[in-house]
């Protein structure tokens, strides 16, 4: 094991999803569930990244628009977001993404720090990239993504 990453296990599982043409992944253990077509109550005057509130079986959960958070253009009209509910520190928060993809086994050997071309706001939220065959998988820092 290299000295640089002594604590990172060799392989881990990421739940992956698409957002504006890019593939992202979050640690599987953070993901509670994935929902489709949730009605979202908007929250006037909230920060722009807060898409609103959803009703998760009686629990009110904040929905974060990940496109806004990552500084991407708004989701095109007529396409519906998919809701990924993540649980952090015992609290449920949800992320709005374009579509959900597979759970992927990744190896630490394929990991690399975020490319220098990433711009400011996205760079803070992305831990790095896994070089998969024919595709880069961007590892999202969930804690930062749901923070304000």
């Amino acid at each position: 094991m290299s000295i640089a990453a002594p604590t990172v296990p060799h392989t881990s599982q990421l739940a992956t999803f698409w957002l504006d043409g890019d593939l992202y992944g979050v640690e599987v253990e953070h993901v509670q569930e994935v929902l489709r077509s949730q009605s979202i109550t908007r929250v006037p005057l909230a920060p722009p990244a807060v898409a609103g509130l959803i009703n998760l079986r009686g629990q009110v959960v904040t929905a974060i628009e990940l496109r806004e958070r990552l500084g991407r253009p708004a989701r095109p009209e007529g396409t519906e977001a998919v809701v990924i509910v993540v649980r952090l520190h015992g609290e449920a928060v949800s992320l709005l993404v374009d579509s959900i993809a597979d759970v992927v086994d990744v190896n630490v050997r394929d990991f690399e720090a975020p490319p220098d071309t990433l711009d400011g706001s996205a760079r803070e939220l992305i831990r790095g990239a896994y070089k998969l065959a024919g595709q880069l998988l961007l590892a999202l820092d969930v804690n930062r993504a749901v923070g304000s």
Partner: protein
Amino acid sequence: MEGLDDIVEEFLVESHENLDQLDQDLVALEQDPRSRERLSSIFRTIHTIKGTSGFLAFNRLEEVAHVGENLLSRLRDGALELTPRRTDALLQMVDCVRALLAAIEASGGEGGVDVAPTVVVLSAALEEAPPVPVAAAPAAEVPAEVPAEVPAAAAKAPAKRAVRTAVSQAPAAKVPATKAAAKKAAVAAGTPVPVQLPAAEVPLEVPMEPTTTPPTTPSVAPAAAETAADRGADAEGKNQQPGRRAVADSTIRVDVDLLDALMLLVGELVLTRNQIVQYVGRQTDQDLVRASQRLNLIASELQEGVMKTRMQPIDHIWSKLPRVVRDLGLQCGKNVRLEMEGRETELDKTLLEAVKDPLTHLVRNSVDHGVEASPARVAAGKPAEGVLTLRARHESGQVVVEVADDGAGIDPAKVGAKAVEKGLITVDALSRMSPADILQMIFLPGFSTAAAVTNVSGRGVGMDVVKTNIESIGGTIEVESVPGRGTCTRLRIPLTLAIVPALTIECAGDRYAIPQISLQELVALDAEKAAAAVEEVGGASVYRLRGELLPLVRLADVLGLPSDRHDGHVVIAVLRSEGRRFGLVVDRVINTEEIVVKAVGGQMKAIGLYSGATVLGDGAVALILDVQALARRALRPETAERQESRMAVMATSTVAERQRMLLAAIGGGRRVAIPLDTVTRLEQVRSEKVERVGSREVVQYRGAILPIVRLDRHLGAFGGDEREVLEVIVYADHGRSVAIVVEEILDIVDGEANVHSDINDLGLLGSTVIGDRVTELLDVRAAILAADPAFYSPAPGTPAGLSPAFAFAGTVPLPGGLT
């Protein structure tokens, strides 16, 4: 039982529980006589009973417990061995204690229970000497004699005597006692060591002949005792006062966490109920409709029931206050009497806890700052003893708690000066605030009015903390005060936190919930009415609510959304916050429903407009509006219409740059402008209601006599014919009011009050041009004096030395403003 002290009741409940434990412990101890742990536990229990009974002056109970404690301490220290004899003695002690408790419960006193035999047995058990036959001991009527009779026969005498006393003194004792007896017997039956039914207990098995139960045959005893219990119960059913269970049997201790969990579940049930009822409302299946109605009913009852389990009388926190007041009074050298009204008013335990500290703080504040020292009171013509009154009552789904004193009151002038001095507000802003609003500034952080910092209060932390605490539980706080007469702080607290009655409204296509606690009334205006009744004043709208000017806040504007109401209709929710009223204009009102408050993340809280969120009947999430925050956001002093101060105008009306003016016609084509700030209400009075007192005209108004000044006559205009309905401008100050009659109320305008001409006349300050027409500026003071020459003479108790500006300041809240 009636009038049984709370302390005694608590003592009984606790002791009964402890005694049950004691039985188990003692029996277990026999198996393992060396168990220090059990001995210590028993010792502690008896020690507690001894201590409390001594404190409550139950001397016989104390005596028994004391001897028992002696024995137990020797046993615990290993000085004595636990023999079956000693176990018996201890069990007998337990039974004796039980009998005493039963008597206390029944009659409030120890009744005729004889403790001497038990004391003898216990004392004997303490001796190293060979045992006196234990079974005989209970028979000992005279402790000094060594009993030599046959146990069973001997038991008869005390037993019968005890029966007599127990029955004659306390009929209610029968059932608990027999139950206890049955239980006791059952315990005995399960024990390999024979335990006789001690004398102290046998007598209470009323219908039985005590001696027919052979004390040493436990196999028979339980059956007999049970029969006794049954018969006892029958007897109770026939000739007891009905429905009153014994304290120990009628209460049960439940973990508050469990109640919290139950409450949460009930909240979810209520939500689900709302959803189902809404869904079923669209169905035609009669059976389904009926079932849902039933569900509706049951859910409501369940909710009520669970809420009740969490309710406690406010007396729980009040009971500590007399001491606080007394000590503090002594410390401050003041003579204060505490009165309490509505101490049985109940509210949720969690809320009760949350209110405790703020309430204590308010009480301390009142004693320290509110009530004056006796000499000052006497000098002010008040009784030397100050009175601090706590009031609690239920009012439209809320609990209202008031802390009122008859002390010096709070002087808005001083509060204002202090606030300026502390830099909390500018002189300019202050000059535009009403006295009632100025008073509320005592809740600002960093504010303290105490002339001297005492160690009681006055360090500038306190009132703002009180306010924060109260608001954190969804309550509100406001203060009103009459200088010289006293101060009243009023808390409004929701009944429960979890489930809140709320109004759901719609704005810009979204639904929001407004807690009913802030809602006063709803006003719906059609387009035609709205056009007339909603007036624009310098960009801000006001609505004349029964003559009173209500500042309007458009929710859509606050939220930065486009309203989707385009038909001109105006729906106003009249809300109250911090003693002020304002109208929230919403798109439409949907419903009132019970909502369950859900926490929202810190991001939402930080917006400062929402106190939480809820799930509505159809499953959609709705935000709960934080009315306090809304008011603070929308009603800055500069935009708070009606709260505009009257005093600044009164003092500086000739130099004010821009003022809002009420335009009125007074006949003969003349128009008069009256500073809006001097107007309390606009009313219409039928002319036949006008009566005469001497040469003056008066009208009865809200239970008071209102002097009238007719502006046309006062200003020498040619009044028109006598009208049927008089347009009246009411002005109130210092508890006095006058009515100014005009011909017609024309408009509210922004006046350039400094564009005066010199053409003056009696009763006028000058004239100005408003809307291209010459308009006379009314000298309000002169007009009022014309109606009531005594109007401005100081009311008794008004502190002297106020600045002229504040001499005019109303110290009486505007009618309706603080109700």
